[in-house]
Every structure is written in C-alpha cells, then in structure tokens.
C-alpha cells in the first residue's frame, strides 16, 4: 500500500460572502494529512467548516488559499477524474429513485461510473450479501424502511469501489439497531476494501464505533486532531462514580471529588483520579457504612466534545 497520504490539506482557506458586505471565513488555514485506509471523524458545531471542507475535497468548491490533494488529484481542478475514485453518502439526501427498486439505481450508477457489467454484477452480489439487501433489492424505494433505504444508499456509494468515502451524517434518523448495523458495515467495508473514510456526524456513536481518529473543527480551525483514545486521555480527566450505600447520605469531602447528584442512598460523584485515587474515595464511603454497589464510567464523549466547544467559544469571546 502506498505510504503517501490519501488526503493532504495545507493552509486551506475558504471565505463566503453571506450578505453583500459580510465575509465569513468557513475554513481558516486548515492543515492535515490522512493516510490511506484511515477512518477519520470530522466533527464540530454547526458552521465549523466541516461541510465546506468536504465540498472542497470533493471538488465542488475552490479554496481561496492553500492546497489540497485527494489520491494525488487536485479536487477542484480534476473533479471529473476524481469523481470516479470517491464515494459520498449524505444521510439526509437520497440518490435512489423513489418509485423504482434500488436495483435500477444501482444499474444507473454502474453506467455513471463506467463499471464493466460483469464487475458490477460481482460487486453488487457481494455488497447485497454484506448489507443484507437481498429481500428488498426489487422493492420500490418508497416501500423500504429508513434503515433499508440507508443501507441501499451506502451500497449505491460503494458500487464503484471508491478509494475514499465521504460520509455526512450517515446514521441520522435511524433506530439504535439500524445505527449499529450501519456502523459495523462501514467499518467492515473500510477494513476489507482499504478505503479511506472521512465522516462527519453529530452522533458520537458514529465516531466511536467507526473511526480511529477524530478531528475537531471550530470556526474553520482545528481544535483537536488525534486518536479517540488520546482525546479521552486528554479531556476525560474525571470518572463518574455512582455509589449505592447503606447510609442515607454520604459526606465525601475529598480533593478532586465533586458531588453531581445525591438521592437517599445513591450518590453520583465526578472524580479526578489523578488527585484522589478511586480506592481512597471508596474507602471513605465504606467508613460511613456498608456499600451495596458501585459503578465507574468514563465521561460520555458527548460531554467531552461539548466541553471542548464551550472552551473554544469562551476563548474567542
């Protein structure tokens, strides 16, 4: 496999005119590199520059400054050629023809991407099996459930075996089991086909279950770029403990411990283990009576990200 980055961005800047005189810098000097086969989550609050970056990388928009290559192509210059190598899934947008079965859209896309018929048949058979679409391949799209439709959308984007896949909110509106299925399939397809995957989502489940690296954007700039584990280590300094005690109330006045909620016999605490070890807190609780049960959780990724956005907003103001 080539060691050159699949996606390389350097100093990318894009400004839009919103009103006649107002200029908004959607992307501001963005620099990053994504290796072939890497699965990267691109997250940030609305207006952070995620979609603009994806549009630049897929060749729809020209940047004002900076450079970018996708698989060695300059997207805005080589858009038509690059289009054969990339796939896109937009969770709220459909590429399927509403009154026709998915098979017809798949056949159209095979023509659009100039895929040989025998190659198309083989690839379709393999994707239909992987995505469990056999039963609905010949059912009009209007009669499919949202989960079936989304699986068909993803198959439509994978039919030409793209080397880079851009996904924008691929699980939006799906139920829990459909989300889990889609996430597993995306991860599997990326691993099997060595496709580079760039995903934007507001659902941290997508990020945790599909990606290995996360890039957090805010006002067009990178706030964090690293592994999800690294993000946890860097920002998840506290653990959340819930204690079920014999005593009606626990008094836990320890450094690094903060009571989040207290009900009779149940106490929720945020603890910084670097300041007070978990064992010390449990000892302190046991000294006040029998401890029936105890849970220790990481701070949810949602909260970590919210905290990062909040920090950035405070910094700007």
């Amino acid at each position, binding site marked *: 496999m080539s060691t050159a980055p699949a996606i390389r961005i350097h100093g990318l800047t894009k400004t*839009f005119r919103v009103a006649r005189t107002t200029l908004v810098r959607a992307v501001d000097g963005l620099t990053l590199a994504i290796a072939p086969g890497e699965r990267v989550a691109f997250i940030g609050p609305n207006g952070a520059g995620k979609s603009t970056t994806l549009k630049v990388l897929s*060749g*729809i928009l020209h940047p004002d400054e900076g450079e970018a290559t996708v698989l060695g192509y300059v997207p805005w210059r080589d858009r038509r050629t690059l289009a054969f190598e990339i796939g896109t899934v937009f969770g709220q947008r459909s*590429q399927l023809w509403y*009154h026709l079965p998915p098979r*017809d859209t798949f056949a159209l896309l095979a023509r659009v991407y100039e895929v040989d018929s025998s190659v198309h048949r083989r690839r379709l058979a393999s994707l239909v099996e992987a995505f469990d679409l056999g039963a609905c391949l010949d059912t*009009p799209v209007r009669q499919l459930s949202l989960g079936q439709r989304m699986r068909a959308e993803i198959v439509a984007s994978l039919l030409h075996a793209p080397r880079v896949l851009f996904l924008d909110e691929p699980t939006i509106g799906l139920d829990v089991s459909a989300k889990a299925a889609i996430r597993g399939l995306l991860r599997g397809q990326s691993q099997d086909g060595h496709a580079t995957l760039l995903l934007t989502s507001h659902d941290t489940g997508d990020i945790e279950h599909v990606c290995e690296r996360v890039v957090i954007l805010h006002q067009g700039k990178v706030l964090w770029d690293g592994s999800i584990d690294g993000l946890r280590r860097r920002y998840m300094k506290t653990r959340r403990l819930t204690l079920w005690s014999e005593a009606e109330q626990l008094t836990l006045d320890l450094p690094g411990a903060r009571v989040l909620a207290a009900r009779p016999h149940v106490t929720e605490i945020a603890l910084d283990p670097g300041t007070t070890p978990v064992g010390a807190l449990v000892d302190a609780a046991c000294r006040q009576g029998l401890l029936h049960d105890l849970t220790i959780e990481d701070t949810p990724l949602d909260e970590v990200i919210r905290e990062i956005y909040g920090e950035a907003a405070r910094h700007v103001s």
Partner: protein
Amino acid sequence: MTPRVAKYVAFGRVAAAHALENRAELGGRMAFVAIILGVFSSLWRAVAEHGIPIAADRAALVWYLAATEWIVLTAPTAHVDIEREIRSGDITCHLTRPFSYPLALVAQGIGMILVRGPFVGLAAFVCGVVLTGGAPSPTLLARFVPFAFMAMLLVYGLHVVIGLLAFWLTDVTPVFWIAQKLLFVLGGLMLPLTLYPDWMQRLAHLTPFPAMLGGPAGLLVPATAPDTVRLARDLAVWIVVVAIVARTLFERAVRTLQVSGG
C-alpha cells in the same frame, strides 16, 4: 455505444421507468386531459349555439385543444424537481459524480416524454374521438407528432431554465406561474393564434411560446396550419436558445456556490 453516451441513455431509461411507475401522476395527467376537453367542448357547443362564429368549427377547436393539452401535460415539470434539489442541497451530490448535470436533465426529459407522451396522447385522442365523432387523418397525425415531440422538449427546457433560477430565487413558483400564463396566452393554448388581433400575433411570434403550442397544434387544423419548414426552424432555434440559456445559468450557478457556499 461509448461509456459516455451509455450513461446518459441510462439516465433516460431510468427516468422513463420512474415516470411509468409513478402511476398516480400519469393517471392524473390523463384524467386532466379528459376533463379539460370535456369542459371546453361543452363551452364551445354553447358558444356555437348562440351563433358566435369563433366556435363555428367546434371539432377543429377540440382537436386543437387536445393537441396543446397533450404537449403541456406531457412535458415534465422539471422546475419542481430542480428547485427541490437546490433547496435541499441534493444538487451538490450530483456535482461529486462523473456526469454532466445539464446533459442528464436532457436525457431524463426525453425518457419521461417518451413514456408519458403515448399515455397522455392516447387519452387526448380517445376524448377527441368521443367528443367530435371523428379524428384527424393519419397523414395529419403523422406530420403533427414529431413537431409535438420537439415542442414538448422545448416546454421541458423552459421548465429546466425556471428550475435553475432557484439557485438565486430559492422559490421559483411565481416565475413558473408567470411563464405558464404567458405560454397559455401567447402560445395559444385554447384558441389558434390566427384568431388573435394582429398586434398580439406579432407580439406572440417574438417569443418561443407559439412554437411550443399553437404552431404544432395548428397542424391538426388545416385551415390554420402553419408552414412546416418555418415551424421546424423556429422549434430548432428556440431549443438551441433554451439549451444555451440553461447551460449558462448552470455554469453561473456553480460559480455562485463558490461565492456564497452550498
């Protein structure tokens, strides 16, 4: 067939299959032709009974209206789909794929016309026979159909141009209403243009509308039949003009995305 041509043929085929599967819309268009022809046939009978010469040849007027309604109701309402794609941002999905959006629109338009045309045409023909007790000669019909097909393409092109304006206007419904009313009046939807005052006929012929409706429909009414060579030339010129306008609008729209974002 080269892969490049094959992809646009595939767009046409899928659009045709989609139009065929959308039975509610197809049935609605066929029913509407029948209703319009029934209403106006009754109206002209009443007018003729009062001795007003405009409705003297009721059968000719019914066939004229059957022809114009066939053209109007077969031409796909592309502006609705294009406006929806622009408003929802779906248009950006198309830009990431290896095909020309304007050429795909042309292919889809032809596909839909080839499916809807026979069905709506059959409804118009049956109603015409029932309401007049006769039918135009096969020679007249054979001469009329190719011109009608070109006219449907031209009306579709007008709808595409209106749809593309959604890049700037977001809601193109008012533009469509104005264009549609101009088409009905200056195109001669209900009455041949030869019945209009001279100044209005001159004004109408400065626009593409007579080539869309009155020209082709006039071929079914021997008394008002236009010069076929001139009609073919007018249709070809206006189709080229509309295609150039659509392409220019699309290119400008893509440039607008660069300035204002998606």
